[in-house]
Structures are given as structure tokens and as C-alpha cells.
């Protein structure tokens, strides 16, 4: 029975997972594997030299790094920054057409085809993780053979950002449905989490207290980025333990 699907009538209601991510900064090495994995998974176009110089490069996940101190007592502080999928997201209320909102599973959703490109959300995101599509994306053939059919290619004039690999969540749910079972912890792994060589990232359902991500969040080292702004991010960072 443990393998089988929960009966919604027995436990009252369908369980709605609450997706969250924990990033252990003590494990993270800053190797940027996640950055490339994300671009590959999500059809994030490269801007090219000219546009990159204009500040139009897109990285749904990036490594922010800051040097502290002076040589030789110098340290570098760094962390991967992606859409924090805030429970209290500043980007959401400002969109005039509801192109961005938080869904029942706690994902901060960006609906590309609804977006009219006011870029208000991008301004209001304190993490600056939203990217505008300045041009229609192009790939020099045959690089386009790599494009992931599970992820829509964003047209010019809309805002895009990390989705927590919503298409993978969808896929995992459909697979589970097809096999008539519940989603198990670890069934859903966003591309960044999956690639992370130091295994610094964990993704899962934070409403399930037994999930790996819940345990990380409750490890005592967890904190949220810019928590003082009250955005209530779904991405938890575990402090370096030094």
C-alpha cells in the first residue's frame, strides 16, 4: 500500500506538495555546473558577445560572488541565486495582466504567453532574477537540435525566469499518475539540483516533514536571502559552518 496511490477520500483531500529548495553553502563550490545545466534544460538562449556587453545575458541561476578583506586575508562569499519562488513575491501584485502569480504548489509562475512585457515584475524583484527577452531567440543551426521540447521557447518581449523546472514537476506527476502512485521524495529534481557535483542542492516538498528538503530547512543552518524584505522565499540557504 505504501507504493500505491493515496486515496483522496480517505485522508480528506488531495495532498498538494509545497515545493522548496535548500542550497547548502557549505557544500556549494561555485563551479557553475548548475548554470549550464539550466541553460541546457530550459532553452535559455545565449545572448552573444554584443548583447552580453549590453547587459542582456540571461542566466536563470547565477553565482553571486563578493570578495571580502584584502590579500592575503581575503575571502570570497558566493551563492547560487535563482528565482526564490517567494511566498510573498513582490513581482506578483504589480503585473497588470496576471502573467505571474503563485500557484497552489508554491511555485512562482511566469506565463509567457500572457506577459505583455511591462518589466514591472523584473524591477520589483529584489533578487534581479527576472530576464526580459529583448529579441526573439535564435540558435545557429544545428544547435537548435538540442532544444528541449518540454519547455516553451519564449518569444520576444516577455519576461522569463527560473520555473523550478515546472516541466519536470509535471512530468514526474504524470509518470506517478500513470503508475498509479504518489510522488515520492526525490522524484522531482530540477536540472540544477540534478547536476550539482557537490550535491549542495536539494529539492522537494516542504510540507512533507520527512522529505530531504524539510530536514535541510530544519537543520538550524538555514536562512533566506534578503529575508528582511519579508518576501518569504522558498529557497533556503544553509550557512557555511565555519
Amino acid at each position, binding site marked *: 500500500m505504501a507504493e500505491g496511490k493515496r486515496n483522496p477520500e480517505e485522508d480528506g483531500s488531495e495532498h498538494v506538495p509545497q515545493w522548496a529548495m535548500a542550497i547548502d553553502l557549505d557544500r556549494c563550490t561555485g563551479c557553475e555546473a548548475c548554470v549550464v545545466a539550466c541553460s541546457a534544460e530550459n532553452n535559455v538562449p545565449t545572448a552573444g558577445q554584443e548583447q552580453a556587453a549590453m547587459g542582456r545575458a540571461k542566466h536563470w541561476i547565477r553565482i553571486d560572488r563578493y570578495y571580502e578583506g584584502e590579500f592575503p586575508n581575503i575571502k570570497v562569499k558566493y551563492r547560487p541565486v535563482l528565482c526564490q519562488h517567494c511566498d510573498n513575491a513582490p513581482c506578483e501584485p504589480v503585473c497588470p495582466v496576471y502573467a505571474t502569480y503563485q*500557484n497552489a504548489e508554491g511555485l512562482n509562475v511566469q506565463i*509567457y504567453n*500572457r506577459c505583455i512585457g511591462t518589466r514591472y515584475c523584473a524591477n520589483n524583484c529584489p533578487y534581479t532574477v527576472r530576464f526580459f527577452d529583448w529579441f526573439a531567440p535564435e540558435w545557429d543551426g544545428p544547435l537548435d537540435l538540442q532544444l528541449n521540447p*518540454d519547455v516553451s521557447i519564449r*518569444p520576444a518581449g516577455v519576461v522569463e525566469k527560473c520555473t523550478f523546472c515546472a516541466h519536470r514537476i509535471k512530468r514526474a506527476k504524470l509518470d506517478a499518475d500513470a503508475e498509479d502512485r504518489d510522488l515520492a521524495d526525490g522524484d522531482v529534481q530540477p536540472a540544477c539540483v540534478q547536476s550539482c557535483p557537490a550535491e549542495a542542492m536539494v529539492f522537494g516538498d516542504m510540507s512533507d516533514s520527512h522529505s530531504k528538503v524539510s530536514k535541510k530547512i530544519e537543520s538550524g543552518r538555514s536562512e533566506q536571502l534578503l529575508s528582511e524584505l519579508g518576501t518569504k522565499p522558498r529557497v533556503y540557504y544553509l550557512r557555511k559552518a565555519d
Partner: protein
Amino acid sequence: MLVILLMLVALPVAEAQQPLGFSHSAHIGKARMQCTDCHVGATSRDQAGIPSIRKCMLCHQFIAKDHPEVVRLAEYWERKHEVPWARVYGFKKEAAVQFRHAPHARAEIACAQCHGEVSTMTVAVKTVRHTMGTCIGCHRENKASDDCLACHF
């Protein structure tokens, strides 16, 4: 004025021009085939799929070889070409719709609900408008998700 407006709304979408006069009614009605015999993915995969010419030729090597359309089919087969079927239903790229067949089949949505009574058609004709209104109406009726993310990602 109103008449023109109504005509514009009611104007059927231009029919896809098919390279061969394939008759759905002959296959489903007369030959008693199932939709999934050819569109094998319709109930189990993301995409229903258009059968390869190999599948056509499995039968038509033997059956109705003299039918003019089958003769034309055999010409493609001789040249080792697939039949360049034209798409009848589909979403525009900018709609960013990620449609999956399998969950709809699991929810026991009949093929005809979205594709019309294809069994009575010859060449498939678009009879159901696939607009967001169509989708969301059905979703709400069946208490399926009306989260935008259910389809757009």
C-alpha cells in the same frame, strides 16, 4: 455589419490540404479499426503521433492495392518517402501550450470531444475550435486544474 462579423467568427478555419485522400470513415467505420491503432500514443504518450508509411503498407501491401489513393501511397513507399501529412490540430508556438494526450485519455475524455466525429469523415477536418476557451471550459467542467501552469510552461 453584424452579419459580416458573425461570418468572420463562424468562418471555418482553412482546411489542411492533405497529400493523399485518406478516409477516416473507411478505416474506422468500414474496417473497424480503432483510433489508437494508428495514433498509438493517443492514450499513453504525450503525443498521439502520425503513423509512419510503414504502418500503412503493412496492410496496403495486400489490401485495396488498386484504390487510386493507395496507388499514390505506394508511390511514396517506392521512393522511400514518408507521406508529408499536413497537421490538422495543433497549437501555435507563441501559445506556449504543452499539451499531453495521455492524462486526457486517462481522464476518459473521448477522442471525439476534441477532434469531432472523425469516424464519419474522410480526410480529417478541423471541427472543434481549440481555443483556450475550449480547453478551460472543459477543465472547469471536469474539475481539472485551471492553473495556468497546467498547460503553459
